[in-house]
């Protein structure tokens, strides 16, 4: 389980095979096109609705662009982007809690507004359970089970040791099994 799963599909756009020149505007645009969908996929799992995920994706690339000249080509570029994206998601979740508190006060006595119908229609119990996990656990799960990262790659993306990644994944799976009633 430490390496990429043999059955897992290779990354759709193979960004790790691309080479980029730090500070190059053209290369950053290419990086954006090559990685946007995968970063968005991660963020949708972490921030609960598609518009927020799209906003976070743009924020991620803004932050990345500001640091683009200092990015080191020897580091995996998508892991670097994922690290920024996860920090953006954590920040967004924090702001979301504040917004929700304000929203509760604002709509006292009125029915709650629904979530994104397009997303709800396709959501499963499993996906909703993943979204309710702590952000860092959900991030580890989506990197492992959607993007097919190894624990080492997840560790590089999150800036944590492999053992911590394994621990987070085990905790998350155990939690999901309990929530979903799987033995």
């Amino acid at each position, binding site marked *: 389980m430490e390496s990429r799963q043999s059955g897992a599909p290779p990354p759709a756009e193979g960004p790790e095979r691309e080479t980029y020149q730090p500070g190059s505007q053209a290369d950053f645009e290419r990086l954006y*096109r090559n990685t946007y969908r995968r970063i968005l*996929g991660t963020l949708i*799992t972490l921030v609960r609705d598609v518009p927020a995920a799209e906003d976070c994706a743009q924020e991620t*690339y*803004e932050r990345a662009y500001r640091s683009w000249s200092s990015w080191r080509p020897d580091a995996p570029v998508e892991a670097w982007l994922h690290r920024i994206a996860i920090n953006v998601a954590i920040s967004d979740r924090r702001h979301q809690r504040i917004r929700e508190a304000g929203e509760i006060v604002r709509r006292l006595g009125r029915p709650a507004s629904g979530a994104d119908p397009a997303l709800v229609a396709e959501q499963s119990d499993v*996906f909703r359970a*993943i979204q309710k996990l702590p952000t860092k656990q959900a991030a580890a799960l989506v990197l492992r*089970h*959607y993007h097919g990262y190894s624990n080492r790659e997840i560790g590089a993306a999150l800036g944590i040791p492999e053992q911590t990644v394994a621990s987070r994944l085990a905790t998350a799976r155990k939690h*999901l099994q309990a929530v979903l009633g799987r033995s």
Partner: protein
Amino acid sequence: MSSDIERELEEALHRVLDPISARPIPARRAGHSRSAFRTVTGGAGAALTLKLLTGVAAAAAAVTVAGAVTTGSVNPVVWGQTITSTVESCKDNIAQSGGHGIGQCVSDVANTHGANVASEARHHGNPTSNGSTNGNGSGSGSSNGNSGATGHGKSTSHPTPPPRSGR
């Protein structure tokens, strides 16, 4: 057991995320509008903005209180009219007695203002109000009076002091 949940996770993630991720890629947001907004509304930026606004509000309040105490009105136009009419009448008196310049008049108004503020604060007996208002009134009065007198009409009777050697 573990592989079952892993397979279920992968299927669920792909079922939900693949269609959404297949949408067209939007243009990259190039501006820093959101970041600039967050600089003001979040983190250290928010603290700095709050301090700045508090400082401006405190300064405005101090000016309003000083003007209101002196003239009995919160309208700044009234403050200006009060000072102008007082200085004008003073100037007329000086002209009749053969003098010229408004330095002494401004000095008198400022000193009177300082004394009034101090008296008002003592009358209220509020320790906080007393301390801050008294300080403002006295300082402003004597400083403005001396400065105005030196610059406008009393240069011989109030010579400009020599520059401080410490600077």
